[in-house]
């Protein structure tokens, strides 16, 4: 193989992809959508002008005012958390409460009729009545024209629960604040043990990292494998392939194409990574608020392994796609054959759960050393729990050897297949091509 030939092909493949509008639309849509999803609601919440005007009819003396305080405090806490990037309760659509406390009148029916009329007239949005009966039953009627504002109702419910508890505790002679302090919930901090020592990690984080990497690898391989296939088909159908093969070998063409398109895929990943980094930066809203709102820590070594496994997986699957492109004449013809590749891609998904649960089981070790499974399953094991180094290295060696052999095989199909126009070959014919080339 000649490096300058491969470089020329690689350059063309890369620039053609990266210069196209479609590439940038696909690349930018995801971060923009995420940004919109994350930033816009908090902007809305912070500057919301929507207010919820509520009348609290207080039949208990002081509870109404306490409820109003509670609602305002809860609101302030939510906005504060948003700004700090640790938004726990996502209730962005909630409106701001404007609470007016009115004393309970003797004629409850007349007061109810009057307040209902004000709701219907649009003067206020809702009203509730807190009194001895509602405190005892722990039940309050929420009377409003619109009753579908669940988030507003939930916040109101929380505040009521708190205020009622306080009132009941006080009636029993307890210090409400002290009780809250003593009955706070417990948190579990998980520690991941590695050769380098213990690192603190949020409970779900290991799993989430593995899953995220897994998902990215799958998506990118599926998308870019298809691009490789279409690239080969395009060269065949436009007939330029004969001009190319006059000065270059099938292997140079194949390697240049795979590396060039792979580089375009890495460019896309890099843009996504930068966008994620920007969105999760302190001060900006916490995007990866997984579980407890902890951003998972990924060790640099894991990132390096991810990159290597990504490349191996990419070459593995895209050379299969290239061979399919070379053996067929059109996307319609090629599509059914991609079914041959899919099982290799999907099979490791089925073993994900057993591998996560027991990453050192014989099953997990053996499966992660099968070349077509290594990029996904070995990566999963590395993310969940560090496997022995020799297993990681063996995985690299076996998969690389497999990829090299596969590419040599595909170059043969490519060489014979690119000049075959007409009917799709049978598998027996493919075998003959491979022997003959």
């Amino acid at each position, binding site marked *: 193989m*000649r490096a*300058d*030939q491969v470089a*020329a*092909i690689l*350059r*063309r493949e890369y*620039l*053609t992809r990266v210069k196209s509008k479609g590439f940038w639309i696909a690349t930018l849509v995801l971060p923009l959508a995420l940004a919109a999803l994350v930033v816009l609601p908090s902007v809305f919440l912070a500057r919301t002008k929507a207010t919820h005007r509520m009348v609290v009819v207080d039949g208990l003396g002081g509870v109404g005012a306490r409820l109003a305080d509670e609602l305002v405090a809860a609101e302030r806490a939510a906005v504060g958390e948003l700004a700090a990037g640790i938004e726990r309760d996502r209730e962005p659509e909630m409106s701001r409460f404007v609470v007016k406390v009115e004393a309970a009148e003797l004629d409850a029916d007349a007061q109810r009729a009057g307040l209902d009329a004000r709701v219907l007239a649009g003067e206020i949005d809702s009203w509730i009545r807190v009194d001895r009966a509602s405190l005892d039953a722990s039940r309050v009627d929420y009377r409003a024209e619109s009753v579908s504002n669940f988030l507003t109702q939930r916040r109101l419910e929380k505040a009521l629960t708190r205020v009622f508890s306080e009132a009941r505790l006080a009636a029993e002679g307890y210090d409400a604040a002290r009780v809250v302090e003593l009955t706070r919930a417990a948190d579990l901090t998980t520690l991941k043990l590695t050769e380098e020592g213990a690192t603190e990690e949020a409970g779900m984080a290991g799993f989430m990292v593995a899953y995220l990497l897994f998902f990215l690898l799958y998506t990118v391989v599926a998308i870019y494998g298809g691009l490789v296939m279409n690239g080969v088909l*395009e*060269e065949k159908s*436009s*007939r*330029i*392939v*004969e*001009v*190319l*093969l*006059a*000065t*270059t*070998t099938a292997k140079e063409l194949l390697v240049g194409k795979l590396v060039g398109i792979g580089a375009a895929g890495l460019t896309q990943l890099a843009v996504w990574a930068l966008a994620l980094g920007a969105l999760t930066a302190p001060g900006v809203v916490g995007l990866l608020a997984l579980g407890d709102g902890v951003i998972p820590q990924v060790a640099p070594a894991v990132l390096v392994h991810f990159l290597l496994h990504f490349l191996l997986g990419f070459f593995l699957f895209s050379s299969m796609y290239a061979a399919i492109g070379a053996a067929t004449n059109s996307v319609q013809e090629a599509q059914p054959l991609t079914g041959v590749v899919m099982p290799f891609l999907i099979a490791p998904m089925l073993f994900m759960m057993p591998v996560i649960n027991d990453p050192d089981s014989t099953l997990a070790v053996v499966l992660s050393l099968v070349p077509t499974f290594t990029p996904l399953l070995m990566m999963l094991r590395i993310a969940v729990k560090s496997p022995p180094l020799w297993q990681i290295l063996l995985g690299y060696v076996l998969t690389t050897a497999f990829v090299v052999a596969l590419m040599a095989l595909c170059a043969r199909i490519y060489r014979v297949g690119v*000049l075959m126009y007409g009917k799709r070959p049978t598998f027996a014919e493919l075998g003959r091509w491979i022997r*003959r*080339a």
Partner: protein
Amino acid sequence: MTPTVELVNLRKAYDGHVAVDDLSLAIAPGTVFGLLGPNGAGKTTTIRMVMDILGPDRGEVRLFGRPRRPEDGRRIGYLPEERGLYRKMTVADQLHFLAALNGVERGRGRRLVADWLGKVDLAEWADKKVETLSKGMQQKVQLIATVLHDPELLILDEPFSGLDPINQGLFKELIVELRGRGRTIVFSTHIMEQAEKLCDEIGLVARGRLILTGNLAAIKRERGPRAVAVRFAGAPPPLAGVPGISAFELGDDAARLTLDDGATPAGLLAALVATGAAVAEYRSLEPDLESIFLEAVGDAS
């Protein structure tokens, strides 16, 4: 002199059908060589084996005096029978890419592409996508792609098929120019008139076999002349029975006479004058390539 292209006992079969059978030939440097034959004779298969796009079942391709190597591709300008360009690439990008693939250094490639595009009046199309060009313009781009890296050897498969008259003229000029600069040119065609005008040497292929090869002028000398054209001052004399004539076509004052196997044009002229005919014009007719070809195919089968 070491032949630029040498084919030794080439054979290629597809699933029982023999496309090229035991084909050997040698092409000297600086020659314009026409590979001639009807469609399906095996011309394209032969050319693809020379380009190492197909591997021969048997035999050997030798280029520049040694067995073919992958890097020989850069010394060749190849125009395949099935033309093709990247439709979505711009004209300039496409040519820069093909120049790089042929080992032309980038800066030089840019200058060459600009020069060529100017030469064929496509300069203002440099940044347009190929698919927006007319067919004639695409042919010009393909032509530039073939000669851009100034190859020593040109291999053109049916270069004139599908070309509009302007591009045909352009192509012929180019072949003559390249030949003047000592380049070796091999082209295939099934249209004999084109070959007749351009070739120094020819190889006739029929059903996968080379049935006749050599210098075109020598072949013509060897094979002919087999007929003469005569114009008489006044009415033609009776021609039946004149020795040396095997057949004749008669006009008002002219005739086309086919010679007997042993006869020569000079001998026939003497015989005609001896009959007392007033011969105003007498010209021996060289056989055209078409008839040589038909005759050769007839002999071979």
